[in-house]
């Protein structure tokens, strides 16, 4: 039982990170119907920026941990958003009216270019960072097995919950969110009633990038290592999460992320760690066969 709860905690932490990335996929898919393949790279860029911000803070001698975390968070969100905006502007906006596959290839190209850009500028070696938040508490003990909840895990879960709450408010209650939902339903109609569609799409990318940056920072803190290649697998997993939860649905993305995190944690704990990715994808296929719209997705009615 103790082991089970420990894996539950680990899985939820991992799932929170996947969920944050998945939101970026699902929002972009919802609004322009394309798979933003470069989103995993955005997350990787976020992770790198948080590492670099940490080093900058270290070199100016700032050591107060809460302040360091806040600055890292803000800096990585800010810089990564600009990356998200630029990518949309360069690689996707000219392709608004092009065939869908064109945008996908452009996104794959962007992803390759970004990966190699980071490799060129920051080197191919793994960046290891000393833990910033250490320690934790022991929840309970059973048969000599301690269930531990680290402060970092608490930080990750609370931050994710706060971001989700803020984000839901943004989408549900503010004019910005309303414009976004309008564009999602019908771009032409939204443009006719005075929504600036291009700007709304840009904002979507910026928001997705900011959330991915938070995920990137969390991973930096959680695993302590970053390299230029982490974006690909995380991107694929997060996209799987978005599809699992029902693409286009925000709560679905979060739910899908949590599920993927839990599946991975439990599979690694009880079966073989090598096949955890196989397990994730197999479950995705099974879910899609029986619920083709994902868990929380709305069925799409095709009209002639």
């Amino acid at each position, binding site marked *: 039982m103790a082991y089970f709860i420990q894996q539950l905690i680990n899985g939820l932490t991992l799932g929170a990170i996947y969920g944050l990335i998945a939101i970026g996929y699902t929002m972009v898919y919802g609004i322009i119907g394309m798979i933003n393949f470069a989103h995993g790279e955005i997350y990787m860029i976020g992770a790198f920026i948080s590492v670099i911000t940490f080093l900058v803070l270290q070199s100016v001698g700032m050591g107060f941990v809460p302040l360091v975390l806040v600055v890292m968070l803000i800096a990585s969100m800010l810089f990564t958003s600009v990356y998200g905006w630029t990518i949309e502007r360069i690689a996707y906006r000219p392709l608004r009216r092009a065939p869908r596959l064109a945008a996908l290839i452009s996104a794959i190209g962007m992803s390759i270019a970004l990966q190699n850009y980071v490799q060129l500028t920051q080197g191919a070696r793994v960046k290891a960072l000393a833990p910033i938040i250490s320690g934790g508490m022991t929840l309970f003990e059973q048969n000599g097995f301690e269930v531990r909840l680290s402060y970092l895990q608490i930080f990750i879960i609370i931050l994710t919950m706060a971001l989700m709450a803020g984000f839901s408010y943004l989408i549900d209650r503010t004019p910005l969110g309303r414009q976004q939902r309008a564009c999602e339903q019908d771009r032409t109609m939204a443009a006719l009633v005075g929504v600036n569609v291009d700007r709304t799409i840009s904002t979507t990318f910026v928001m997705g990038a900011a959330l991915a940056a938070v995920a990137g920072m969390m991973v930096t803190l959680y695993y302590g290592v970053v390299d230029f290649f982490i974006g690909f697998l995380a991107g694929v997993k997060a996209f799987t999460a978005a599809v699992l939860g029902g693409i286009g649905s925000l709560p679905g993305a979060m739910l899908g992320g949590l599920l993927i995190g839990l599946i991975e944690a439990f599979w690694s704990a009880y079966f073989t760690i090598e096949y955890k*990715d196989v397990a994730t994808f197999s479950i995705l296929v099974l879910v899609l066969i029986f619920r083709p719209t994902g868990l929380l997705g709305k069925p799409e009615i095709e009209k002639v």
Partner: protein
Amino acid sequence: MSETKIKVGAAETSLPAMAKDVLMTAVIALVLAVPFIGLKSDSVGTALELYTRWPEMFAIIGAVLVGRVAFLLLRLRRDQPRAQSAQKRAGVKELAANWGGKHIVLIGVAGFACAALLPMMPFASRYTVDIATTFLIYVMLGWGLNIVVGLAGLLDLGYVAFYAVGAYSYALLSTELGWSFWVCLPLAGVFAAAFGVMLGFPVLRLRGDYLAIVTLGFGEIIRVVLTNWVDFTKGPNGISGVPRPSFFGYSFSRGGEQTFHDLLGIAYSSQHRVVFLYFLILILAGLTNWFTLRMRKLPTGRAWEALREDEIACRSLGINPTNVKLSAFALGAMFAGFAGSFFATRQGFVSPESFTFMESAIILAIVVLGGMGSQMGVVLAAFALVILPEWFRDFQQYRMFLFGAAMVLIMVLKPTGVMGRREPTIRLHKKKDAAEDAEAQPEIAQ
């Protein structure tokens, strides 16, 4: 985010607007460059240290600004005499398309003849023939995937999985059971097609984008299984000593029972095998192309194209979308299987390393950059993506970065691909308006 508010519209051609544009570009370039180019983290021992590279950073930003100014000026020039040049351009396009359309068979045959004569050319060194062989593998894969993506309109992001199935089935059958290449080649195709059906059957009912993620996942699954199932596949070390193919039982080795050079009574040369492999892939690729071209004229092939254009219309005409898609998926997989077993026999070694997502991405890029459904486009795009990077070996470091950037650039400049014209293979009624048809975009934004 103040940046998001700036709209760089097409209409802004006045001087202040352009100055503002350049200024904005500068600001954004600065923000982008500071954390990655201006600052660099590097490990010193166990700790990370920070370095700065300001001069390089400003040089790069300067280059970006020069590029932006050049771009704006170019657009200014292009916008002014618009009407006339657009008309002229359209005329030239039409002419080229007509000419190309009429003589496409001729171009194809000539290209094939040139390819067949390549090893006899004086400049054909071992290296050249080797590169040409690699190029033809990609052309064949491109043509195979073209059936799935270009004709049937199914987005397959895990095509390399079938390639891997083909390669491993030959490698295993030949090393474990000692079967010959010529027996394994069709078997590899059958296995790959069987995997295609197995995967396709549950997921082809789904919408296109789900298919994309499932095929992507499948590609990863195959790779993970190949890496971890050590007893069967020898894991990450791969299978070495895969037998080379023989020419009707005559091997290409220096000594031994029946050798190729003895058969012809000529001196042994290691070049023989390279040239033989080249002809083998040329024939396989030619077969793929011929098969596709024939298939497109059959009801099944026409159903693929129809399905790509409108699934609902197809359904109401009594076409079973799942079966039609499945046939395209399985046939595409089959050709990947053939190419895979060729790959295994050519390398003499297979390992999971060769079957990463990057390969799938390159093959898909070949199809889309070439123009979906265009056989000639695949050849051109394969040339651009396989041969050109080969020439830029000196820029090794920047190669992949430029590769990605080029993919974006080509798509932005030519979204329908180099040879992108969606002409149906068979037209039952005469065209009403050629110009209108040429302009029509395959997919109109909502």
